[in-house]
């Protein structure tokens, strides 16, 4: 009780922060006591020492707040549940808790339960860590009978807060562990996809390239262990659209395929079979498509997606996807730009949790910027290396001419050997160029587009929050309206209607909060997995790169050492 006071204003503390700034989520549960515990998706692991959800708080002390990860937020005291009615009442006459709470609510899981005026401070929503979505509900369930709030109408919240504080930490870490063991996303996922054999189909402007997609896997969800299909670029864009539609709203970090490039494609289309098809462009696209598919199946949820599986397995051609323009990178950027006009942060008061998201979001943006720069620099390096390669070739040719002109036999052959040497250096240089590009530059490019999608996920969370706020707003309006009706003599007959509407919006608020908590939790998990993978990917890339460079230089050394006797052969 005590600590609750100040908590009201602060959102529940997810980050395991001690300042229990739980928001009052009780209201919701109070309102809908019948609401069942809504198990959060995902986290199954529950190695928390919290009270298992199932354990009813006998003393009402530890209300098992079942969170999705079945981590309980032990409620300290029986102040678990606020008196539903009481809460309602409180709320009604209350100051605009919503308003006050909104920032808090916005914070994290805390529902912006209006805190009864009487106990402003009390109203700390059970600081159910974000992952514990339905703390309210669990609390609710556990204490179905309205209990006299020890302290205030929404008593348990405080307790919840305090308790949740400690819990939060555990829950969070618990969840974290959960994600580790459950969603291991390394490359050891027993599935490997290669994209190969770009083939031109048709002629002229109506032609297109198809790619062979070969999947090798030991996973049981696929019928065979190795299979191939043919797909064209628009198929990829179509798949991406479906994946985005289904999963972005949940906050998943999705990969994205390479961009549509009308100009380069036009060149490909008009080139004859004899002429050189712009292989650079096609090969780069192939490589990025391969990366895209492997990223898709790296994500357990996406691997389960039937559209993804169909894409990989279905042996016939897929129905042609239209509207591919919107699905390409340009479309994503447009979407991002639109969003940036809107609120990019939660405008309400931030809690630790929100700070976490804000900081992460900022980090993502920063990373994105720097990686883009790095990508440009590597591209620049690529061009320079290519130019140096041409110069080497020219030099080799001119040395050969000189060697042929030279009248002194031994000098002539030494010069000729030198020409050979320069040509070999050119070959090594070309090799280096390709390897550097595919090991480093491509990876950087991939991450730039991955980070674009991460930003979209963060924006989905903000959208979700806004929807939640909107629902709370509407609820309040409806309640106000009802109050007015109650006070007016003629209003009585409209009351049932008003009640219905209130119920409706209460439900929406509940769902809004749930959605928000769910997406926040998902993003946290995703972020963690993402960081792990990022570290791993780059470490491996750097290692491969350095080993390649080492190998090249060892070859160069051999070449020069082989030349020394040639040079020494020259005598007058």
């Amino acid at each position, binding site marked *: 009780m005590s600590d609750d006071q100040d908590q009201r204003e602060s959102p529940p503390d997810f980050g395991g922060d001690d300042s229990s700034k739980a928001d009052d989520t009780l209201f919701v549960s109070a309102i809908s006591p019948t609401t069942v515990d809504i198990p959060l998706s995902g986290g199954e692991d529950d190695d928390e020492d919290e009270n298992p959800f199932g354990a009813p708080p006998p003393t009402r002390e530890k209300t098992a707040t079942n969170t999705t990860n079945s981590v309980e937020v032990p409620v300290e005291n029986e102040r678990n549940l606020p008196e539903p009615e009481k809460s309602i009442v409180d709320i009604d006459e209350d100051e605009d808790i919503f308003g006050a709470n909104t920032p808090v609510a916005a914070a994290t899981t805390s529902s912006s339960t209006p805190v009864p005026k009487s106990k402003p401070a009390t109203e700390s929503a059970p600081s159910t860590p974000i992952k514990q979505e339905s703390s309210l509900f669990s609390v609710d369930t556990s204490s179905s009978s309205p209990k006299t709030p020890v302290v205030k109408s929404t008593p348990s919240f405080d307790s919840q807060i305090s308790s949740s504080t400690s819990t939060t930490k555990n829950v969070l870490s618990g969840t974290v562990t959960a994600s580790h063991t459950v969603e291991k996303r390394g490359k050891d996922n027993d599935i490997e996809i290669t994209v190969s054999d770009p083939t031109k189909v048709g002629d002229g402007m109506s032609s297109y390239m198809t790619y062979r997609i070969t999947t090798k896997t030991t996973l049981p969800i696929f019928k065979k262990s190795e299979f191939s299909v043919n797909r064209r670029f628009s198929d990829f864009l179509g798949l991406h659209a479906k994946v985005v539609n289904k999963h972005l709203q949940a906050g998943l970090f999705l990969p994205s395929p390479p961009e549509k490039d009308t100009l380069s494609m036009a060149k490909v289309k008009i080139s004859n079979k004899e002429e050189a098809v712009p292989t650079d462009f096609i090969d780069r696209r192939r490589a990025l498509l391969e990366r895209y598919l492997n990223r898709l199946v790296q994500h357990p949820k996406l691997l389960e997606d039937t559209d993804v599986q169909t894409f990989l397995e279905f042996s016939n051609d897929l129905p042609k996807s239209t509207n591919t323009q919107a699905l390409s990178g340009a479309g994503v950027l447009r979407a991002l730009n639109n969003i940036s006009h809107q609120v990019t942060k939660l405008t309400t008061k931030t809690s630790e949790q929100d700070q976490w998201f804000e900081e992460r979001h900022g980090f993502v943006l920063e990373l994105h910027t*720097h990686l883009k720069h790095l990508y440009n620099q590597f591209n620049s390096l690529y061009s320079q290396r290519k130019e140096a390669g041409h110069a080497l070739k020219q030099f080799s040719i001119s040395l050969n001419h000189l060697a042929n002109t030279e009248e*002194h036999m*031994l*000098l002539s052959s030494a*010069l000729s050997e030198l020409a050979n040497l320069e040509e070999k250096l050119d070959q090594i240089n070309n090799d280096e160029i390709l390897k550097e590009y595919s090991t480093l530059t491509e990876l950087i490019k991939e991450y730039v587009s991955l980070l674009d999608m991460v930003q979209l996920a963060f924006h989905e969370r903000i959208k979700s929050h806004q929807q939640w706020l909107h629902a709370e707003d509407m609820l309040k309006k409806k309640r106000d309206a009802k109050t007015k009706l109650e006070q007016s003599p003629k209003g009585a007959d409209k009351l049932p209607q008003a009640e219905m509407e209130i119920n409706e919006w209460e439900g929406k608020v509940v769902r809004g909060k749930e959605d928000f908590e769910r997406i926040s939790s998902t993003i946290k998990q995703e972020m963690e997995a993402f960081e792990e993978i990022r570290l791993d990917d780059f470490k491996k890339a750097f290692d491969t790169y350095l080993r390649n460079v080492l190998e090249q230089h060892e070859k160069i050394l051999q070449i020069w050492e082989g030349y*020394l006797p040639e*040079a020494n052969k020259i005598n007058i």
Partner: protein
Amino acid sequence: MAMLEPSGSMDEIDGKQRADTVDLNDSDLVIDISDALSEKDKVKFTVHTKTKLPNFQNSEFSVSRQHEEFIWLHDRFNESEEYAGLIIPPAPTRPDFDSSRAKLQKLSDSESTLTKEEYDKMKQELEAEYLAMFKKTVSMHEVFLQRLAAHPVLRNDNNFRVFLEYKEDLSVRGKNAREQISGFFKTLTKTADEVLLTNQKESDEFFERQKQFLTTYNTKIKDATAAADKSTRTHKAVADTYIKVSGGLNTLATADKTDLSRYLLLLADFFEKARKLESRVQSDADLKLSDTLRYYMRDSKAALDLMYRRSRCLADFDTANKNLDRARTKNKEVQQAEAAQQNIKKKFETISEKAKDELNDFKTRRVQMFRKNLVELTELQIKHTKAQIQMIKGVLQQSETLP
């Protein structure tokens, strides 16, 4: 730029090498450029001579000379009939720091777009480039004098002595205008020479072969020199791009607060080290290979000049012969014609005889210098590549100790 330090950033071989470029027969006349000062647009070389030869006033002395005075000296040799049969060592090229200055200017213009480290590094690179160019121009002027000193005939030239000894200015600058005009005529005569040489009937097999050889060789080596320069330049540009990449990785490392940051720093460091080593590889390639090619481009041109002189003489000889025949048939002024013909004949035979020696000497010199430089180039590249391999292995080892 101040005093020139021969060792500098180049290999130790460098300081010693300059003296070895030219075959010094003895220590009777030892010349080096002990100092060089760059002032605004001019470079002042301190020419230091040690000699045992009697025609000099002192046994050791120094004078200050500028580029124009070197050109003056070269022209004296080139235009002298006495040395018509000799290959005159090619004149050094004018010190040109314009491109370096332009680059430096461009860099300071774009200072705001670069990070401090990037700017500093690029400035360092440019300064090193400037220094290298400076050293090269000193070397060129020095080698020119040393070749003169090594030549048994040329070393005794009076103008040469004056150049080395005379404390005052040689007041040749006023002749710049004349130089320009004479330069213009030179290009005219050159084309005429080329035509003459190509069409001339040559009875001497040796000279016929030399004619073919030198003409083609000069062209091919010009191409090779240009290609070598381009190769060095583009490779240096790659090394310079490493600066940017390294900077980008550093920035990323600072922003990234995870374990990855250490890897990024390591890779940034790798690019920085790679840059330095690659720069050295290219400088040495430039010094040993490109410069050798360049020198022999100019030397083969000097040999070609000898051929032109001889062919002009031959043309005059042919004319004298015709005149003599005509005089004999007309029986007029026969004696004069005979005298003239004898004169030219003698001149031509002298040139031819000396030229033969010179051209053989040219071949020997050429082969020697190429051999020396190719061997040194190879040894240096082996050394640098080994260093690169060590460096990369070191980076890999370090990365293994990271989390």
